[in-house]
């Protein structure tokens, strides 16, 4: 059911004939030189659908254009020792680490900051849903989640809106999908007032032979979309194209927020695992930000050929969607698989068993074109690499802010921070501290999270690390800790980032596990501020060096920039907040070490300096 008339469709043919047509590249967030580069790549103006694809894939969020040059540092500090357990490193949906006995784990932390400010419940819920799909896309069964949260001042009225929404969103999705929540953080600081941070981590387990990668190989193999129907979620930006390209009717209303359906995702997990175990999947990719644009271009780019996709075969929730909107939609709970023609019937039988809607959209083709058709007309014909991997790379200027010296010199003096003298004062200070928002019990949060589901949780709140069992026969399992400290990082980004890593590493080691790998979510302000960029560069350098010293590789993560509102420059930005997840392995999780006193009469030792 199409509402567009063929004449209004911006096809490749039409783009060739109308080279001078004005296009809303600026509204879509592209810079003049970026638009020019697209024209050079294609040798013509892009169609509306192509412009939509490039603009979203070349956005900061998808292309890492400001952070890429710095993230390379991690690779430069990768030693042989660090690669020892690494099966898949940075660059795939999530890193994969060998934990022995034929088992591997995959884990990653990702942000959903801005959406959680707009609609706290759904923003946080869909953040959890997104990271779980990343883990599924590696061929793993998700086994636990964690969440690291930053909110504004605890007594600010808007905090009372954001906190309960975010917490029930994290819980609502995780509880309903059946993943134990095994830890996280809650921190309050006024710098996060308009920019709360919601970072969610998921860990999954798989047997070595079940590892799947996101690539489309084998000419003639089928490209299959399965899961929820596609609606107009998260495509607000592309509506400018509608008004440009279509004159038959104005753009219909598009939702500003995505609503998560954890039930649909639970079904998708079970369905995917059955598909994997039956050997019916050649390549797989989750649909997250940038939806089909991202999934098709990344699958094709990582594969050995091209891809042909018939967009009109996408099952729609909203039949009024236009081609470029379908390409951009960020509807949740969808996956894309590459399947051989011989396996397609078996594939469809499994998805039917789970009541998961499935559509064969197209196939892997010879050559190097990603071609997208809409009712037989070609609306996209691009080299997929140029969309997915060869986006712009910026060398943003960075400089140590002048205010940094004053900040560091501003140490609390005895007058400003009086030391308690005597037992009573000490007692009062202690009570004040344990009652303060950043140190008090987190039970209000953690009581809303299921930590028992799946029956493998050996440690969770209130311990410093979460521990879950992977292999029920041997007790083999993993420990995870997720930590950050924006205040330390603001004072000294390099050391602050290292301290966060050290804390997570210690927590995992103290639980009795051998730390193996690192994931990180780097939450900073605007990269267009040289001070923010300096914080970022320093933090990454610090992390890379510390990882090398500890012998644990960064296997993946996420960068979230532009966490700032207002025009006070660096002062409008959130505290620079690298959140670091460390994963360790235990041969037998029943031998994990809980924290806290267990029995009276035990001795207390203080280790370290």
């Amino acid at each position: 059911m199409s509402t567009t008339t063929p004449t209004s469709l911006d096809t490749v043919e039409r783009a060739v004939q109308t080279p001078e047509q004005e296009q809303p590249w600026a509204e879509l967030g592209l810079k003049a030189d970026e638009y020019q580069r697209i024209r050079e790549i294609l040798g013509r103006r892009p169609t509306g659908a192509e412009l939509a694809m490039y603009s979203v894939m070349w956005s900061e969020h998808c292309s890492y254009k400001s952070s890429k040059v710095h993230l390379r540092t991690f690779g430069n500090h990768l030693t042989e020792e660090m690669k020892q357990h690494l099966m898949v490193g940075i660059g795939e949906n999530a890193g994969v680490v060998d934990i022995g006995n034929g088992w591997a784990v995959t884990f990653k932390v990702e942000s959903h900051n801005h959406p959680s400010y707009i609609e706290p419940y759904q923003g946080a819920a869909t953040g959890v849903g997104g990271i779980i799909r990343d883990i599924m896309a590696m061929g793993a069964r998700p086994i636990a989640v964690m969440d690291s949260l930053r909110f504004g001042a605890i007594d600010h009225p808007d905090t009372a809106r954001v906190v309960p929404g975010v917490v029930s969103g994290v819980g609502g999705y995780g509880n309903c999908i059946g993943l134990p929540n095994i830890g996280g953080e809650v921190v309050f600081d006024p710098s996060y007032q308009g920019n709360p941070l919601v970072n969610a981590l998921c860990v999954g387990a798989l047997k070595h032979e079940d590892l799947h990668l996101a690539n489309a190989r084998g000419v003639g193999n089928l490209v299959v979309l399965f899961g929820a129907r596609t609606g107009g979620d998260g495509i607000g930006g592309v509506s400018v194209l509608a008004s440009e390209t279509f004159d038959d009717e104005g753009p219909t209303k598009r939702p500003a927020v995505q609503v998560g359906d954890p039930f649909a995702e639970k079904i998708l997990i079970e369905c995917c695992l059955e598909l994997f175990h039956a050997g019916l999947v050649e390549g797989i990719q989750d649909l997250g930000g940038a939806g089909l644009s991202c999934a098709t271009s990344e699958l094709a780019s990582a594969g050995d050929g091209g891809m042909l996709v018939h967009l009109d075969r996408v099952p729609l929730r909203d039949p009024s969607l236009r081609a470029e909107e379908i390409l951009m939609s960020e509807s949740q709970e969808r996956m894309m698989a590459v399947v051989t023609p011989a396996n397609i019937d078996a594939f469809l039988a499994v998805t039917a068993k789970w009541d998961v809607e499935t559509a064969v959209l197209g196939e892997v083709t010879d050559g190097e074109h990603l071609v997208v058709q809409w009712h037989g007309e070609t609306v996209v014909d691009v080299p997929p690499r140029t969309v997915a991997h060869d986006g712009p790379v910026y060398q943003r200027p960075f400089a140590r802010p002048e205010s940094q010296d004053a900040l560091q010199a501003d140490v609390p003096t005895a007058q400003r921070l009086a030391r308690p003298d005597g037992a009573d004062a000490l007692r009062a200070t202690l009570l004040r501290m344990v009652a303060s928002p950043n140190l008090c019990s987190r039970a209000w949060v953690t009581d809303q999270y299921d930590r028992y589901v799946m029956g493998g949780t050996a440690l969770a709140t209130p311990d410093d690390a979460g521990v879950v069992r992977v292999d029920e026969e041997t007790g083999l399992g993993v420990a995870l800790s997720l930590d950050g400290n924006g205040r330390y990082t603001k004072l000294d980004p390099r050391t602050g980032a290292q301290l966060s890593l050290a804390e997570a590493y210690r927590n995992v080691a103290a639980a009795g596990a051998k730390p193996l790998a690192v994931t990180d979510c780097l939450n900073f302000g605007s990269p267009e501020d040289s001070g923010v960029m300096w914080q970022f560069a320093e933090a990454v350098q610090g992390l890379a060096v510390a990882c090398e010293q500890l012998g644990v590789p960064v296997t993946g993560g996420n960068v979230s920039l532009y966490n700032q509102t207002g025009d006070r420059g660096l002062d409008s930005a959130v505290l620079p907040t690298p959140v670091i997840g460390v994963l360790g392995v235990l041969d037998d999780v029943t031998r994990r070490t809980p924290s806290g006193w267990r029995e009276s009469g035990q001795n207390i030792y203080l280790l370290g300096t």
Partner: protein
Amino acid sequence: MRVGVVTFPGSLDDGDARRAVRLAGAEPVALWHADADLHGVDAVVLPGGFSYGDYLRCGAIARFAPVMIEVVAGAERGMPVLGICNGFQVLCESHLLPGALVRNDHQKFVCKDQRLRVENASTAWTSQFAAGDEIVVPLKNGEGGFVADTETLDRLEGEGRVVFRYLDGNPNGSLRDIAGITNERGNVVGLMPHPEHAVEELFGPGLDGLGLFTSVLSAGLEALR
């Protein structure tokens, strides 16, 4: 003894229930919601989770699954049936148990280690306990408030059909602190807390949950004799 554990779309604790059955010494049998066949099992567990997302009312859609026709028929013949959390909700929706479960009075999901008193130790699922025993098992739900009209509540109390009661404060607004109930015959039991999460040392608050699963085992052995 073979104990079936039903998987509905959205069941979450089905694997845990099967593990509990196994640790109790019985053979767990996975049953599928769309398959109207109990495959000859001697007892059935309806596990926790969010069947069909719990979207309409908890358990409302699962109640109509093909397998439930067989479960209801089995229950009426006297087969032991245990509904845990979402399973309890399904049993109420199916009218195998009276009353209903509504949103927690504090409106939040709650996950905690919960102390309970075993009030009735003569059901198919509690014979290994003694009346008055206190046990600790995890509680985790968003809609765990047990409600029924006063007459029903009085009847439940009068007939000794309250099987488990919350101790140390009511976690969800359940009327009369009711955590679990049984039918007249004592073969069908539903409870909100999760005994299957207290069957292995270190993976839960203790081993207090195992008793429900060993109880049905001995009920089965009795029947064989």
